[in-house]
């Protein structure tokens, strides 16, 4: 137990930090002085609680140190104390802009560990919800990036589109944000005709609405000037830093786990991996726009190919039974009791399952000791990794470019801080 002496309290750490010479600006010659600027954690452009310490020479950024941890909730520790099923709602709160994709990624990891075969229909529905969440997340990314550089209209337009997807979530699983839709071995509820009709209507309007956004920004000189050649991350740096997702593809590396390590039924669907070579903020924006179009095409294909059948695997020892059966049948009641109290019984071992979420590679590494709780679960969150390249992207930028670059990285702090 640390003992706090009277000496400590007299001179707090904050005070001593304030006395540090870096924060004291001595203006002998204003043009020759470097200064330290603290940005965040409470700053509207940092998309949450990201804190940046910026060393400035005039208006030029000399170095940046991102500080994370302001939203650290210790999910990896919570996972060790909960059963595999209990952790599903926590995955909603990782990347809270695409909760369903996180649910699916987590369930895929547990299914790989426990060796559960998921029915065909469930896999198709999972593709549908994953791609919907990718569109929803990219819409927020595009809109908020445009807002960060001063184009407020686009944010309203993209949020209007996103609202339609959230409405589908609402019908599908009863929640707009904290969906908890995927279950180990299947899904919470079946996809129904009302969702199909809503998705059809969304897809019918989406192309035109996205073209409007593209037209508004692509020919907007202010937007292009503020994003072009800003925050460049070269191909070599992106690979060395382990960057994934749209940022890596905007640097010219065609890595997409949907194609490279197919999961669900992506190997049966036809789509392109959108890449650009510039590696700047504008390229990242256009990669996201391109991916939204590809996602819309995947949605169309998956909707057309959606097979009939069960939406949850029939494996009583691993998959929770349907609620209506739990209340009416004895066996299912016992199964539910055992699953809730003991959890599933995976073999001893360790697995890693990565999926291509909207931000990049979202992965779960699970070490199992054969009990109903994971012995260790590591969440490989794309936002953490992507933020680690921020110092490289921002070096040499102007101070006003910082918001544009953060917007183009599209970090979600719930995921970055875990």
């Amino acid at each position, binding site marked *: 137990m*640390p003992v706090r002496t009277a000496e400590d309290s007299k001179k707090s750490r904050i005070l001593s930090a304030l006395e540090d010479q870096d924060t004291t600006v001595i203006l002998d010659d204003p043009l020759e002085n470097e200064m330290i600027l603290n940005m965040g954690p409470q700053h509207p452009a940092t998309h949450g609680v990201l804190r940046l310490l910026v060393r400035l020479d005039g208006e030029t950024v000399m170095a940046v140190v991102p500080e994370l941890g302001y939203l650290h909730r210790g999910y990896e520790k919570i996972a060790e104390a909960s059963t595999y099923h209990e952790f599903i709602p926590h995955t909603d709160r990782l990347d809270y802009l695409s909760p369903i994709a996180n649910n699916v990624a987590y369930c895929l990891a547990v299914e790989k*560990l426990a*060796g559960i075969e998921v029915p065909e229909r469930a896999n198709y529905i999972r593709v549908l919800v994953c791609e919907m969440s990718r569109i929803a997340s990219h819409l927020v990314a595009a809109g908020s990036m445009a807002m960060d550089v001063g184009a407020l209209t686009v944010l309203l337009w993209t949020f209007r589109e996103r609202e339609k997807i959230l409405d589908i979530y609402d019908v599908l699983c009863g929640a707009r944000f904290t969906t908890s839709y995927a279950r180990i071995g299947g899904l919470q509820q079946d996809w129904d005709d009302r969702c199909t009709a809503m998705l059809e209507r969304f897809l019918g309007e989406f192309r035109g609405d996205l073209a409007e956004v593209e037209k508004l920004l692509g020919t907007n000189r202010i937007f292009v000037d503020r994003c072009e050649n800003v925050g460049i991350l070269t191909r070599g740096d992106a690979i060395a*830093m*382990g960057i994934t997702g749209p940022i890596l593809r905007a640097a010219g590396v065609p890595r997409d786990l949907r194609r490279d390590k197919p999961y669900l039924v992506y190997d049966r669907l036809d789509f392109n991996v959108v890449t650009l070579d510039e590696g700047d903020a504008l390229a990242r924006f256009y990669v996201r726009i391109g991916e939204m179009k590809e996602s819309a095409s995947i949605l169309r294909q998956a909707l057309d190919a959606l097979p009939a059948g069960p939406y949850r695997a029939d494996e009583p020892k691993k998959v929770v039974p349907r609620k209506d059966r739990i209340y009416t049948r004895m066996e299912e009641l016992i199964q539910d009791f055992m699953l809730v109290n003991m959890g599933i019984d995976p073999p001893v071992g360790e*697995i*890693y399952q990565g999926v291509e979420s909207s931000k990049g590679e979202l*992965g779960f590494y699970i070490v199992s000791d054969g009990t109903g709780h994971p012995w*260790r679960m*590591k969440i490989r969150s794309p936002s953490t990794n992507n933020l680690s390249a921020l110092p490289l992207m921002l070096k040499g930028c102007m101070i006003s470019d910082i918001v544009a670059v953060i917007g183009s990285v599209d970090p979600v702090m719930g995921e970055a801080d875990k």
Partner: protein
Amino acid sequence: MTRSVVETLQARLPGSVRGSAEFRGDLTVVVRREDIARAGEILKTDPDLAFDMVIDVLGVDMYRPEERFEVVYNLYSLKNREYVRLKVLVDERDLTVPTVTGVWAGSNWHERETYDMFGIVFTGHPDLRRMFMPDEFEYFPLRKDFPTMGIPDSLPLPRR
């Protein structure tokens, strides 16, 4: 794939591989602790394997008397579109592992996080600070002997 990773390491760094296992298609190779940076360099620069991306570095507390901690390196090869996991075992009495930041720059924050959560020191790391927890925090929260509810008074609270 399994054989080529293990064989390459054994041929170019004799004695470095302590074992390997495959589970559900995932390959894990246990490497001697002091060899991890050189093994990483070999796997990265080998033209056939080319594990050029570090996806994750993480710690595991196995809570056993000998070699209590594991550090796992999850690598990806863009060329072969393959994953491989390297693993080193760390004893509680000597919590040091050579850093791999010289091989993959992206492991910087992952190693910081492992240090933050388990107290494993990566020797040669350029910036080994706490990642998520406050600097004045004295414990390592993902160790198994750290209670899930936390330790009272582990963070200084405002006084009356």
